[in-house]
């Protein structure tokens, strides 16, 4: 016997940003949550389940926070689509409107829009406790009578009122009429009525279900939202024409349709409910005093620098032991499997391909989760808006959004979380521009390469004797990357990624203590998204690169001399420890020889003519190919190519530095001169030597176009600048 499969009831959670909507979502759904994507767009879709006393299991959908249903972009359009069930969205059976009691009138604007749509609704009057402190109460009963839908006072942070809210949801799900008050109010102006009626005639049939007030609400939405340059989807031309026609007529007789539509809602709100709520709450008065310091032209910027410094110090120092722990764990798993599996191609594939690839994915996790936890603290406390406030002018000079500041800074740690953090910007154009330049910021994976090259080729102290040239070079590399990123943003924003500079309207919410649950959840979910979506690509790339550099095996006649030397070890070295050292040396030579004749080695040689003008030989070419999995792999690849080894990593790098310094061309000149080093540093600073970043950008932009453009322009930029550095240096007489 099969159970009849019926869809779970769907409850949508809507409300202004900073109303505690996410807290309420967490309170309702507990740990039973999923993050997906809205169809065809990069906006996280958070959903979960809650068990209600009567209705049983119900799905809860957290709609992105918004002030209004009207929309210009496809991202903003999600709200109307998901709440009214247009296009690919399922219509919710009930909408819970989360309302900040301290900002009642503004919050009620969205409530009215949803009630107009005839969606059964329940209002959660949140943060009531903040008002109690002032000795003022919001009269939930009066509000309920005015709106005609159940109003439940809640405090989402403390969890109070949640069971009452569940009860109200249950009641309205059982009899939807209780949450559907019908037309309590209407746009009364006869001229506006005529506009609305005319637009109703042009609505697509799929939006109509015979309910006249709902059709008027769609007409009002279209009149407010449609524009010549909006980016809305699924809007038929006939509707656009009808709206444009009515707006032209209205403008011709000196009317402002936008003002009329919005003002008639606010007039109703002001008349019926908002009178008691004029005074600012104590929280905002307190926040205002804090902002006197944090938004101060001097102290504010000083505090910002301190906070950012602390943030990135934390990001590096806290993630370091975790990364080492994961590295070590992966190494242990690898050697355990290595000891279990028989020697051969399978073992090599599992340990050096699969497990190393999984490791390459997992080592990113500490930084990603930590970064998002820290961003969560900044967002949840309300400080993030202040960062945008302070940085807007500086960022705008190069065409970036004020909110791009955080992703750009995160780029110093790793471009992958930085690209994922661009989602805090609403506009696609702003996100795209930021994603295209973030990988130019010198990430943590470039640091080992910088230190290797600088350490090998530049003196410890300069001519003056007290300036640390190596330290200076390192700081210089970071400044160089940042400068080029800003220039690239300026150029791209004026050419390929143009867009009108949109006015900035930023809410500064009152400061609040960030909630551990919200922060932890954000870190966990971002980590999961990274592993499932970017991780697979990174794993595939690592495995492919391993195949390239480990195959084909050394041919018999190339391996023969080495085998002969191994066989001769017994006679040559009598001391066992010396013999062991010599055996290791032969193995390193074998590795180097194998790498030289692998596909990667052949690619390196094929690449040589292209990179020779930059001063690079084929061995650097092999290193460059290997570093596509992750930049720091360059150091390991070079160590293999040069057969450099030692007791530990530090010793291996020291040997590698020496071998690089001693490497000679056929005519006896050194291969690595400071000029070649400089060219290599510049190349690493600018080239997109990171397929993981490409994979993440592909995921975020949902196309191959932009990641490939990024790969192309960064590689071209790196080649040209390295060429200029190397050839210019030669022309000036440096070697």
């Amino acid at each position, binding site marked *: 016997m099969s159970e009849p499969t019926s869809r779970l009831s769907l409850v949508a959670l809507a409300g202004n940003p900073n109303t505690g909507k996410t807290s309420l979502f967490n309170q309702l759904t507990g740990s039973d949550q999923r993050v997906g994507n809205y169809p065809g767009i990069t906006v996280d879709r958070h959903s979960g389940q809650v068990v209600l006393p009567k209705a049983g299991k119900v799905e809860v959908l957290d709609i992105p926070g918004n002030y209004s249903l009207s929309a210009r972009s496809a991202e903003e359009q999600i709200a109307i689509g998901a709440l009214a069930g247009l296009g690919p969205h399922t219509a919710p059976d009930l909408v819970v409107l989360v309302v900040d009691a301290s900002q009642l009138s503004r919050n009620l604007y969205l409530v009215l829009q949803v009630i107009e749509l005839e969606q059964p609704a329940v209002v959660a009057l949140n943060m009531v406790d903040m008002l109690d402190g002032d000795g003022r109460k919001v009269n939930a009963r009066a509000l309920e009578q005015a709106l005609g839908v159940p109003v439940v006072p809640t405090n989402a942070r403390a969890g109070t009122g949640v069971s009452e809210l569940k009860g109200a949801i249950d009641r309205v799900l059982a009899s939807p009429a209780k949450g559907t008050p019908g037309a309590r109010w209407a746009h009364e102006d006869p001229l506006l009525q005529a506009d609305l009626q005319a637009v109703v005639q042009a609505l697509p049939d799929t939006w109509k279900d015979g309910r006249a007030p709902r059709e008027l609400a769609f007409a009002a939405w279209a009149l*407010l939202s449609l524009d010549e340059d909006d980016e809305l989807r699924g809007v038929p031309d006939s509707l656009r024409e009808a709206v444009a026609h009515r707006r032209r007529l209205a403008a011709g007789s000196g009317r402002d349709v936008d003002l009329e539509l919005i003002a008639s809602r606010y007039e109703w709100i002001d008349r019926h409910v908002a009178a008691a709520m004029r005074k600012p709450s104590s929280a905002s008065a307190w926040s205002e005093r804090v902002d006197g310091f944090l938004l101060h032209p001097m102290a504010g910027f000083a505090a910002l620098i301190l906070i950012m410094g602390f943030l990135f110090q934390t990001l590096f120092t806290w993630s370091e032991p975790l990364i080492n722990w994961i590295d070590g764990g992966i190494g242990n798993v690898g050697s355990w499997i290595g000891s279990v599996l028989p020697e051969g191609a399978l073992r090599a594939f599992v340990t050096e391909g699969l497990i190393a690839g999984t490791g390459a994915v997992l080592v990113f996790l500490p930084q990603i989760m930590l970064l998002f936890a820290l961003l969560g603290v900044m967002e949840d406390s309300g400080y993030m808006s202040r960062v945008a406030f302070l940085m807007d002018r500086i960022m705008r000079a190069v065409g970036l959004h004020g909110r791009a500041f955080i992703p750009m800074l995160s780029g110093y740690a790793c471009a992958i979380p930085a690209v994922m953090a661009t989602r805090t910007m609403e506009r696609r154009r702003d996100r795209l521009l930021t994603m295209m330049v973030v990988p130019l910021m010198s990430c943590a994976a470039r640091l080992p390469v910088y230190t290797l090259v600088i350490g090998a080729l530049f003196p410890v102290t300069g001519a003056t004797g007290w300036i640390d040239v190596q330290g200076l070079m390192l700081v210089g590399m970071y400044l160089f990357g940042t400068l080029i990123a800003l220039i690239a943003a300026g150029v791209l924003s004026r050419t390929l990624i143009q867009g009108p500079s949109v*006015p900035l309207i*930023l809410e500064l919410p009152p400061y609040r203590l960030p909630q551990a649950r919200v922060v932890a959840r954000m870190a966990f979910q971002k980590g999961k998204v990274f592993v499932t979506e970017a991780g697979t690509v990174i794993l595939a790339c690592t495995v492919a690169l391993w195949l390239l550099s480990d195959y084909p095996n050394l041919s018999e006649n190339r391996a023969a001399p080495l085998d002969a030397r191994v066989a001769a070890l017994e006679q040559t070295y009598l001391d066992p420890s010396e013999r062991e050292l010599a055996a290791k040396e032969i193995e390193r030579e074998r590795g180097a020889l194998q790498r030289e004749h692998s596909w990667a080695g052949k690619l390196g040689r094929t690449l040589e003519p292209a990179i020779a003008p930059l001063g690079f030989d084929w061995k650097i070419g092999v290193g460059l190919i290997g570093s596509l999995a992750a930049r720091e792999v360059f150091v390991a690849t070079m160590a293999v190519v040069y057969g450099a080894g030692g007791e530990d990593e530090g010793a291996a790098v020291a040997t590698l530095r020496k071998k690089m310094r001693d490497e000679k061309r056929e005519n006896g000149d050194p291969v690595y001169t400071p000029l070649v080093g400089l060219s290599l540093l510049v190349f690493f600073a600018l080239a997109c030597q990171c397929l993981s970043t490409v994979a993440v950008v592909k995921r975020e932009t949902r196309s191959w176009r932009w990641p490939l453009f990024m790969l192309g322009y960064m590689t071209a930029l790196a080649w040209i600048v390295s060429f200029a550095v190397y050839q210019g240096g030669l022309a000036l007489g440096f070697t």
Partner: protein
Amino acid sequence: MIALPSLPPGARGRLVSLGGERAFRRRLMELGLLPGTELRLVRLVRVGGMVEVEVRGSHISLRESEASKIEVEELKS
């Protein structure tokens, strides 16, 4: 009638008219900044080119250049 950023910091005013492009005006109106609405200029940060206003219990910040398209009359208390 003066531009919003010309209001002395801390002073209250009443919104008279909104200028600028349609999307900007629409968004401000939807946040409750309508002709006749009372507001307060909380601060003007010249270095960052930003103003902060308090309206209907919430704090909203705008670029100084864009806020200058909003005309207000000062309310003497």
